[in-house]
């Protein structure tokens, strides 16, 4: 019978097959699903983040670790949902209107899922109305916007203004990121947070829901 501690190693090393097998075995042995997430998977993703910050891991390693995390979560999440456990937060994520780039957005979405968030991925070229709809219909409490181009950055401001106009701005934290984005820009347009990279985005989202 595999030791659930091995789940930590499987996620850190990005071994999706082991991650799934260990999770299934642990659940069959009666280990609490939330304990698997909190005691092994979240610490594993923290370690992945630490290695990223230390330049030991780059995007490929993040992707495979997120994939290993996801393999385990796919069997765990239905159990949590069935017994009414709430996700850490519900994120509506998308690349802003006019922008079709999604490599960074997809990476952030995977890592947020790995961090215990429910992620509603709205894709690319997302108009403000789409974010508003998801806040209203699915009770998203974080809006995460991405833009790669300086020419599409202004759509972030437009989206925040649209959220205000729709009366939903106070229901969500707005987090932004993308190559040309800076903290200064985030402050300027009244976003609640900015992260330079995908790892930082998870920490940021956790702070945002705790605040």
């Amino acid at each position: 019978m595999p030791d659930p501690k091995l789940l930590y190693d499987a996620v850190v090393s990005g071994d999706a097959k082991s991650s799934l097998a260990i999770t299934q075995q642990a659940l069959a042995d009666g280990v609490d699903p939330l304990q698997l997430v909190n005691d092994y998977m979240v610490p594993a993703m923290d370690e992945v983040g630490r290695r990223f910050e230390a330049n030991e891991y780059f995007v490929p390693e993040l992707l495979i670790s997120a994939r290993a995390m996801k393999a385990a979560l796919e069997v765990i999440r239905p159990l949590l949902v069935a017994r009414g456990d709430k996700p850490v937060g519900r994120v509506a994520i998308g690349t802003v209107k006019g922008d079709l780039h999604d490599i960074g957005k997809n990476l952030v979405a995977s890592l947020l899922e790995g961090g215990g968030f429910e992620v509603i991925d709205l894709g690319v070229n997302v108009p403000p109305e789409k974010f508003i709809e998801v806040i209203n219909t699915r009770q998203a409490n974080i809006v995460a916007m991405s833009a790669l181009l300086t020419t599409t950055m202004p759509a972030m401001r437009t989206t925040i203004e649209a959220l205000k106009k729709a009366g939903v701005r106070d229901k969500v934290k707005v987090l932004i990121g993308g190559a040309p984005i800076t903290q200064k820009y985030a402050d300027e347009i009244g976003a609640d947070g900015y992260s330079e990279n995908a790892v930082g985005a998870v920490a940021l989202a956790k702070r945002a829901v705790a605040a």
Partner: protein
Amino acid sequence: MHPLLTELLASGPVLTDGAWGTQLQARGLAVGEFPDQWNVDHPERVLEVAQAYVAAGSRVILSNTFGSNRIRLAAHGLESRAVELNRRGAAISKQAAGGVAKVFASMGPTGLLLMSGDVTPEQVLAAFTEQANALAEGGADGLVVETMAEIEEACLAVKAARLTGLPVVACMVFDSGKDKDRTMMGATPEAAAAALVEAGADVVGANCGQGIAGFIPICRRMHAVVKVPIWAKANAGLPEMVDGVASYRTSSDDFASQIPELVKAGASFVGGCCGTSPAFIAAVRKQLLG
């Protein structure tokens, strides 16, 4: 070395061009509008941009074809126009170049990651082969595989470009890691340069991603491990939004003042990327002549 490169480099470092997107915007390209479409819709305005760089002293100009591989075009529903957009883009630059400058036509990334399985190597190779051939038919003198984040994709583009027999430049974005000396996927300048040369690139280098100061060590490191000429096109720093328009902190003179160091580090094709303009190229020209 390819005879065209020998000819260009005979008189010292070669001045390339600056950003196109912002120049097109100044001529009316709307936010979110696909720039390459203008090769057909407003060729005279694209020609103006190319001419502005030739007038500023560019000896090599690129083309308005950065996004015209069929994979990226598909996102705009334009994949059936790939050949036309590339041919026209190369031809417009060729017209602007006259007999004065050479056209090294632009080939940007597909926007999909090979490593996450979003696209196959066969699809990428086919898309770049189609683009490279169309650019060659449009009159390109060389091809520039640029702004690449994934070595595998860059190498496939280089392989496709080489089939045309034109000289091939390949450059990647170094914007990751705490010293901003890695690609998004973690490759060092040394690893990227070696892989691109191995794939058949005649010139390797870096573009976009950061300001010009960071390009100096990257060029030095590439120059130390490969024998081919080095290409460098830096941004004018990071953008700041002023009244809803991106503006870059680095002035043309600040940018140009770093050029001697960049050349000393091994760069022999120099120009600018995001935030640069014909004024930057003119300033770099002055610096190179000085």
